[in-house]
């Protein structure tokens, strides 16, 4: 595959043709914040945290979905982008009920980490305090809609790695929520294989292993990319 050369934050970078800006940046050791991106599944371009400026392009582009081009000039850390990222995070914190201090993922949460990494010391918007339920019907896992940020990582993992198609998004707009089958209690799902990949994929405390209490929920999403790579590159030989 041919390599392309581009410039990220003033640094000359080369990456494979067909790579995304995000992949090229990671390879060059440049960090771009992401939230809905998950190694191993296709990108949604939904969280807008990885937006970057590309010279000559009027719109901001999501680094996870935009392919590199020869001579591209990318800026990932301008004052404007930092401001938008912080606002995006504030909007997320205000949208549902992310009470970090009482969350299973406290200390291991991608959202919580992004907040401090992007200098969010408080939320300027009124908290919405919607009422969402917790689904604890599954024998091993739980789903707390209060912590859900609708990144759809669990949905994509369920469809594209496990292949079960149990999870999906239902509804629309701020009223969207994650469902299992026909929005029945997770424990009643006939299609769920209880593989737990969705739980591993979750960036916040929305999906958790039952029995975990505050700050106990740790996970390693790189396992998911490992499975996909092993499968695609046929690394397992029986």
């Amino acid at each position, binding site marked *: 595959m041919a390599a392309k050369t581009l410039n990220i934050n003033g640094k000359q970078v080369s990456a494979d043709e067909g790579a995304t800006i995000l992949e090229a940046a990671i390879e060059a050791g440049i960090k771009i914040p992401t939230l809905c991106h998950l190694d191993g599944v296709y990108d949604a371009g939904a969280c807008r945290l990885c937006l970057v400026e590309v010279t000559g392009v009027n719109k901001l582009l999501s680094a996870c979905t935009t392919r590199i081009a020869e001579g591209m000039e990318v800026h990932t850390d301008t004052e404007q982008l930092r401001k938008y990222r912080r606002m995006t995070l504030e909007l997320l*914190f205000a949208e549902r*009920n992310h*009470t*970090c*201090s*009482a*969350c299973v993922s*406290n*200390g291991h*949460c991608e959202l*919580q*980490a992004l*907040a*401090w*990494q992007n*200098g*969010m*010391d*408080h*939320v*300027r918007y*009124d*908290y919405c*305090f*919607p*009422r969402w339920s917790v689904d604890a019907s599954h024998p091993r896992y739980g789903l707390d809609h209060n912590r859900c940020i609708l990144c759809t990582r669990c949905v994509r993992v369920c469809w594209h790695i496990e292949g079960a198609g149990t999870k999906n998004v239902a509804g629309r707009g701020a009223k969207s929520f994650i469902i299992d089958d026909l929005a029945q209690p997770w424990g009643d799902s006939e299609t769920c294989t209880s593989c737990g990949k969705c739980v591993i994929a979750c960036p916040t405390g929305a999906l958790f292993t039952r029995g975990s209490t505050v*700050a106990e929920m740790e996970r390693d999403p790189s396992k998911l990319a490992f499975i996909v790579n092993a499968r695609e590159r046929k690394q397992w030989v029986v």
Partner: protein
Amino acid sequence: MGRLRIATVWLGGCSGCHMSFLDLDEFLIDLAGKVDLVYSPLIDVKEYPENVDVCLIEGAVCNRDNLEMLLDVRERTKVLVSFGDCAVTGNVPAIRNQLGARSSENVLQTAYIDNAQANQRLPSKDGIIPTLLERVRPIHEVVAVEAYMPGCPPSAQRIRALLECVLEGRPPKLEGEMLRFG
């Protein structure tokens, strides 16, 4: 320049932030040498004084007393610091906001009737509990705030970092992981 006049205030919170303040240990002694603690639940002063330089406010604004106090504090203080997650986000006290527009009524019902093992009745005598606000609010939703110190509770290290800014005459500001909620 005279000594800095510092205060701490405890609104709707668990006092954990103040406990963490006490974890400053020997730095408290340094501090005592440089500032006057003019108001605090840790000392015996009844009235919030005028001309306070810096005030750390713990807790969310949950009831009428909190609100009145906060408005007084704001009027008499130069630099207001939201001290801990309850002050910054509403945190646990604000969970009752999910009960909706009549959350104050609903929360009493839940606490004193639904979940009570015995003596199920609402506190009725005036003044036993302050009038609850319909919505618990973080400090900055009510008054302007100069600095934020998240954490539940903020570690002594964070408190010290912020106070050092104050002592050195810089605008108080935390950075990096010091800003982590929870």
